[in-house]
């Protein structure tokens, strides 16, 4: 266990050593948040038919998704792991008295948490200070905040097992393009990061309710802004747990399979 935490730590250190990247990240997230929100504000002002979310809800949803973006977006590959598979450096990973799957999971989670640590607060602070209606509302009941934190913890784990699964698939394909890319596009759209899930057509909503992707971002953010009732909160928390288990078992089994037929690239 301790060694997996060390991977996590090391990824964290590495992530923190890129200051320029972090600053660029903050600016990007702030820029996108602002652009998206301007679009929605204009849309809400010109459209008076009933919409699935209130304006302040959508603004909160967007700021949360931007500030936590580097933790939860699903269009993500760990370049170090991918390179390892491609160049054959994975030989060293296999030499360690450890489980490859857990090793990768802790690397992925470590890197993503290190990124979000540097970006989260600045974006939130700026968003809170903006004038109405662009600002983020941080008045939230303690109970809902607690539920939000729990859902974010599950969401991070779910993200980790899902992203780790991409990388495990790369063990078979020896390349991160192709199947994995298609998978990532679908995941990204259905997670609600492009357009929030409530704005999806009904049948798309049904699909994304069954699949794991929405429970990584859409669900916790709607929980935060209060666009979800209590029944649904507990069902969704259950869905998070179920999908964590499914993806974990799938990833672990596939890893074991892959290692039986592993080919180390090059020399």
């Amino acid at each position, binding site marked *: 266990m*301790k*060694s997996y*935490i*060390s*991977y996590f730590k*090391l990824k964290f*250190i*590495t992530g923190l*050593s890129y200051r320029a990247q972090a600053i660029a990240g903050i600016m990007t997230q702030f820029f996108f948040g602002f652009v998206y929100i301007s679009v929605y504000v204009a849309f809400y002002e010109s459209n008076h038919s009933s919409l699935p979310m209130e304006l302040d809800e959508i603004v909160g949803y967007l700021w949360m998704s931007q500030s936590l973006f580097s933790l939860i977006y699903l269009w993500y590959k760990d370049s*170090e792991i991918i390179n390892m598979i491609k*160049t*054959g*450096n994975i*030989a*060293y990973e*296999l*030499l*360690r*008295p*450890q489980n490859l799957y857990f090793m990768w999971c802790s690397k992925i989670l470590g890197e993503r948490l290190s990124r979000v640590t540097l970006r989260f607060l600045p974006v939130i602070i700026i968003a809170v200070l903006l004038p109405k209606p662009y600002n983020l509302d941080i008045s939230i009941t303690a109970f809902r905040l607690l539920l939000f934190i729990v859902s974010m913890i599950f969401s991070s784990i779910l993200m980790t097992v899902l992203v780790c699964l991409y990388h495990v698939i790369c063990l078979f394909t020896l390349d991160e393009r192709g199947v994995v890319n298609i998978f990532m596009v679908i995941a990204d759209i259905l997670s609600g990061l492009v357009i929030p899930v409530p704005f999806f057509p009904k049948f798309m909503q049904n699909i994304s309710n069954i699949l794991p992707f929405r429970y990584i971002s859409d669900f916790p953010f709607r929980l935060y802004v209060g666009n979800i009732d209590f029944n649904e909160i507990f069902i969704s928390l259950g869905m998070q747990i179920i999908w964590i288990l499914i993806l974990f078992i799938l990833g672990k089994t596939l890893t074991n399979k892959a290692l*039986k037929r*592993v*080919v*180390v690239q*090059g*020399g």
Partner: protein
Amino acid sequence: MSFIMVKHIRKTFKVPIKTEGIIGSLKSFFNRKYRYIKAIDDISFSIKKGEIVGYIGPNGAGKSTTIKILSGILNPDSGSVKINNLIPNVDRKKYVKNIGAVFGQKSQLWWDIPAIDSFNLLKDIYKIDDNEYKKTLNELIDLLNLKDILNIPVRLLSLGNRMKCEIAASLIHKPQVLFLDEPTIGLDAVSKKMVRDFIKKINRQNNVTVILTTHDMKDIESLCKRIILIGKGKILYDGSISKLKKKYDYLRKITIETKDKIDIKRNYIVKEKKFDNKIEFTIDIRQIEINEFIKLLSSKISIIDIDIESSNIDDLIIKLYEEFEI
């Protein structure tokens, strides 16, 4: 009982054949053909504890594949491997604690951070206790002279310094077996010598068994008493270097400079070349000692200068490759 026992291992790789050009690529996209390459074809050997064995052969002979099988990364298709009474791919987790490896063309250090952080990670991975770790680390720092380079991000290190760190990383958990796959590749003469000296030292001090693959015959000459030569997946020679030399390394080139004319015909002179006022004899030292030959020459002519080409293991290996047609 041998420390490392390898019995009749085989490994075949399936490689897709791709035809050239766009049409060819399209064709092989829909109808992929495969070729089977026997990387290792019935290899057996055993190694005693504390031995340094050179595992040599031309490119593509199956050296790296063997190392990967021995280190438990690849499974052999058939045959058995037993090292220190453990089977690498079955008792993987237990087994890998006892081995270290350096793959000269790959890296086990984290690229963006100083090597010391990678070492600390390895400490946790191998669950080394604090005092033990400090002791080993200080030893390695002394032996390899790492003091000034440990705190520099690995990407900024020169290849020689990086290789020092790689080797240190492979030894931090005090393995009993060390696999070195081309550890001196790309290094300059000074770094090469340093790496060799270090390998000798840890072999002597800690009785570490070392299996070394390399294309640099000087590595072999200075480190190994025993070599295993493989080609096309089979073992061609397994034994001491001195025996190999006796068997194959019997020709010497002696070049003399003289103003006199000379004409000797003896059957131990294999070849004779003349240019300007130099003559190059190639003689068979099984039939005459060099010293006798020079005596003979000096009795007939006056020698201005003489050059005796020392035996060269590179040539020996080339000769071997030729003989075995690999």
